[in-house]
């Protein structure tokens, strides 16, 4: 059974904090993705990685960075959290056309 695990289900952080969201997959997939989900906007791609140490910007990369040091782990970093980054964050991994998602991290920035 495929598995994508995000380290936290719920997080509350203060404005200006550096925030790390971790994602691990056990399927040996090359491609990993970070999305955010907001009401009325669907899932928007922040960053993706197609190989270890490789990364590419998605549609809304501003205010975020990523790290892929190992194939199974893809981290999303909020360098200085802001209230407009309050959202549901979803990690996905993919081989072929179907993506498998983690359970999501609900981040609230206060």
């Amino acid at each position: 059974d495929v598995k994508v695990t995000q380290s936290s289900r719920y997080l509350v952080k203060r404005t200006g904090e550096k925030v790390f969201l971790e994602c691990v997959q056990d399927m040996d997939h090359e491609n990993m993705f970070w999305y955010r989900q907001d009401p009325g906007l669907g899932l928007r791609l922040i960053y993706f990685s197609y190989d270890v140490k490789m990364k590419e910007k998605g549609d809304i990369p501003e205010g975020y960075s990523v790290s892929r040091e190992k194939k199974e782990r893809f981290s999303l970093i909020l360098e200085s959290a802001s209230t407009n980054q309050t959202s549901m964050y979803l990690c996905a991994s993919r081989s072929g056309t179907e993506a498998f998602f983690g359970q999501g991290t609900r981040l609230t920035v206060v």
Partner: protein
Amino acid sequence: DQQVKQNSPSLSVQEGRISILNCDYTNSMFDYFLWYKKYPAEGPTFLISISSIKDKNEDGRFTVFLNKSAKHLSLHIVPSQPGDSAVYFCAASTYSGSARQLTFGSGTQLTVLP
């Protein structure tokens, strides 16, 4: 500019009837389409997909139709069940840069009434 659009944010259907969820896209380079289902506080789960070389794919109660000339796809659920109540996302796929990417619509909240 949204390349994948789901114009109905919500849909209510009676149990046992058909649910039809619609999706439009603008990028003619999309060659694979998927539907995902999402319950609150969970990640999306894959439901059904269709390649651009087909116009229909069926899996149990779920059927996806693709009209390439109209750049339109739809998901039919027959018969609808209360457990089908969820947000449904349409997604379209093509190669962009170094990897195949998925572009999602904004989602449709389906409520199946008992």
